[in-house]
């Protein structure tokens, strides 16, 4: 059976994008170990509401690790201490009695804070709109089995496609680079014959958009890969580089 723990939460509170933020401390008592991190915040929010204060704003939705909405930077790690898990999949049994747990929003010029721990990640949509697709309209496509695709390729494409677009890679990167996110989509589509047709156009467009939106350059620290909740590999970044350099030399 899980033990109950008590600890101090230091949470970043910030009214709006332009306003100054600060840490506020909250003491949490007797939290069961099988409470998820977000449920623990629910408990805190319930407390705050009952005291007539405004609850802490944070993004969350599916709470099963797939929607990519949750985005907390806990004790120096995007999505907290576990590997291969999102914030919503962290359970309090990972922490200890008497801990000080610091919770911050994603910090990157590309992700301005909206309020408290909620940030604006629309930049990712813009990168996707720039080219993260295969240009097919609905209908008029060949039979699904018309093009055999080697299982290894399909599996590798799936590894890349597992990206949930949460932005942990950007949050973890000391350069605020979105390379892992961009490369995951570029890789997925470059690996599949359907996507190869416009691979060059895609990689150039997506990368240009990433640069334009103010994300940094990759310096291969691998922090993104280490913190990615879906363990997306930096070999995708190498593939993106290869594709990009190849496309530029072709021009």
């Amino acid at each position, binding site marked *: 059976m899980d033990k109950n723990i008590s600890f101090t939460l230091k949470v970043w509170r910030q009214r709006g994008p332009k306003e100054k933020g600060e840490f506020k401390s909250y003491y949490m008592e007797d939290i069961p170990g099988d409470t998820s991190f977000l449920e623990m915040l629910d408990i805190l929010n319930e407390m705050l509401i009952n005291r007539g204060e405004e609850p802490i704003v944070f993004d969350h939705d599916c709470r099963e690790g797939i929607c990519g909405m949750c985005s907390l930077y806990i004790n120096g790690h995007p999505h907290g201490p576990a590997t291969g898990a999102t914030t919503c999949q962290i359970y309090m049994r990972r922490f200890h009695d008497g801990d000080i747990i610091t919770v911050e929003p994603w910090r990157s*010029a590309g992700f301005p804070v909206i309020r408290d721990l909620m940030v604006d990640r629309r930049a990712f949509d813009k990168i996707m709109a720039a080219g993260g697709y295969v240009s097919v309209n609905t209908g008029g496509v060949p039979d699904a089995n018309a093009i055999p695709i080697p299982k290894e390729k399909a599996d590798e494409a799936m590894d890349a496609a597992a990206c949930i677009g949460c932005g942990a890679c950007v949050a973890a990167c000391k350069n605020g680079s979105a390379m892992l996110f961009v490369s995951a989509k570029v890789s997925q589509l470059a690996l599949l014959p359907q996507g190869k047709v416009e691979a060059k156009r895609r990689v150039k467009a997506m990368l240009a958009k990433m640069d334009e939106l103010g994300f940094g350059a*990759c310096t*291969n620290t691998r922090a993104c890969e280490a913190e990615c909740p879906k363990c997306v590999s930096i070999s995708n970044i190498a593939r993106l580089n290869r594709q990009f350099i190849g496309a530029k030399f072709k021009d």
Partner: protein
Amino acid sequence: MWLFNSSVGKKVVMSVTGLALILFLTFHMTMNCVALFSAEGYEWICNFLGANWYAMVATIGLAILMVIHIVYAFWLTWTNRKARGAERYAVTARPKGVEFASRNMLVLGIIVFVGLFVHLFHFWSKMQLVELQGGEPAAGVELIRYTFSKWYNVLLYLIWFLALWFHLTHGFWSALQTIGFNNKKWYVRLKWISYIFVTLIMGGFATVLILFFCAEGLNWAIFPGLFQGLVG
């Protein structure tokens, strides 16, 4: 032009210049090793690389590579810092698998650069520069013996080599990753290749240094038959 205005392009410039500089270091290390075995051989190389047009082209080329590498480094660091945003994390932790060097390339680079000036002062200013000004260059092996008989120089150089080792272990692998030469299978191999190769280069430099210090500074006779260069 993509080498100027795209993040990957800028990184490619870093990589290519970096790899070229590693190539130069490999050559330099080989040349130093010659000094261990034969003073004459080393002198011959020094003469060969004197104030000739080809040596000058190579020197200027090296300088340009260096300048580009450094300018891009600062440029990238500046844009990357901007991308990080104004607010910093209050708590940071180094995730598993992230190496020290990869996060401190600029600092390491600056140490390397400062060391380079010391090195140029010790050697290049007394050899190629003098020759260019019409003087008689110092004899290479003599200069080595003199410089590395001093313990503080040895220490200084060893620190410099260590910084270089860190800079290069990340740099070499990182350059290959940036130009797209990596995948899941090759990742571990490249890491190993990078460690082994860079350790060989830096080990070569350090060995020459230490052996000369032992021979000149401490007056030990080390395999005089084999290391004829050490015998004054």
